[in-house]
C-alpha cells in the first residue's frame, strides 16, 4: 500500500511545478488562451475520473454549486494568468494568490456564520501582512535626464 506521504508529495511537486508552467506559458501566449488550454488539460483527465465515479445520487442544487464553483475557478485561473502576463514574478504571484483561503474564511464567516478560531485569526493577520510584503515593489527611479526635462 502506498503511504499517504507519497500522494501528498506528488501533489506538492505537481502544484509547485505548475506555478513555473503558468509563467512559462504566459510568456508565450495570452492569459485568455492559457485559460482555454488549461481547461483542455483538465478535460483530458475527465474520462479517467468518470471511470471511478459518477454524478448519480447528487441533487440538482449540489450539481449547480459544483458547476458554479468550476466557473469561478476558471475566472480565478484567468486572473492569475493576467497577473503573470502583466509582469508579476512567478515567485511573488504564486505565494500571493495561494492566500485565497483568507477570502474563503471571510465568506464562511459572513454567510455560514462560522467563527474563526484564535489560530485562524493569527493566520488571517499573517496573510494580510504577507500580502502587503509580497506586493512590495519599489517604484522605478526617474532618470536625471527626465527630471531635468520635467523642470524645463
Amino acid at each position, binding site marked *: 500500500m502506498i503511504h499517504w506521504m507519497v500522494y501528498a508529495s506528488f501533489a506538492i511537486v505537481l502544484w509547485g511545478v505548475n506555478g513555473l*508552467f503558468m509563467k512559462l506559458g504566459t510568456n508565450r501566449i495570452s492569459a485568455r488562451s492559457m485559460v482555454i488550454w488549461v481547461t483542455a488539460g483538465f478535460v483530458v483527465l475527465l474520462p479517467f475520473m468518470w471511470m471511478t465515479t459518477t454524478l448519480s445520487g447528487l441533487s440538482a442544487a449540489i450539481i449547480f454549486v459544483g458547476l458554479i464553483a468550476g466557473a469561478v475557478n476558471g475566472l480565478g485561473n484567468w*486572473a492569475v494568468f493576467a497577473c503573470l502576463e502583466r509582469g508579476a*514574478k512567478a515567485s511573488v504571484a504564486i505565494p500571493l494568490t495561494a492566500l485565497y483561503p483568507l477570502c474563503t474564511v471571510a465568506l464562511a464567516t459572513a454567510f455560514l456564520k462560522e467563527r474563526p478560531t484564535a489560530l485562524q485569526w493569527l493566520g488571517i493577520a499573517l496573510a494580510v501582512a504577507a500580502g502587503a510584503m509580497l506586493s512590495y515593489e519599489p517604484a522605478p527611479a526617474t532618470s536625471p535626464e527626465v527630471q531635468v526635462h520635467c523642470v524645463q
Partner: protein
Amino acid sequence: MQTDRWHFPVWLWYALLCIFWWGLWGFLSKIGSAAASPLQMQILFTLGMLPVALGMLLQMRGRLDRNRGGVTYGLLCGVATGLGTLGYYAALQEQNASVVTPLTGVFPVLTVVLAFVVLRERLNKVQMGGMLLALASIVILSI
C-alpha cells in the same frame, strides 16, 4: 535603478481578483463537499470551467494562440493541477485533512525555488519575508 517609494503595480489588481475568485471557489467547494465526494466535485469543477473557456474563445473571436511552447505549458498546467488534486484526494483517504492540507499548502516554496533557478527571478528582502509569512499563514489557515 529603483527607489524605495512603493507603487501599486497593475498585476496586483489581477492577483487580488484571483484571490477573490479562488476564495469564492473554496467557499462553494465547502458547501458542495457536504454532499459530493472530492472526485465528483472535481468532475463538476472541470465541467463548470468549460463555459468560461468557451466565453474566452468567443471573446477572442476564435483566434486562439497556437504557439507550440505556450500550448504545451497550458495543457501541462491543466494536467498537473488535475493530477496533483487527485494525489491530494488520495492522501486524504489515509490521513486527516488537518495534516494533509497544511502540508500540501507549502507547494509555493517549490515554485519559488524553480523560479529562482529556471527563470532567474530574485525577490527583495521584504518580499522574501512576505513569502515566509505567506507560508505560515497558508499552513495555519489550512488546519
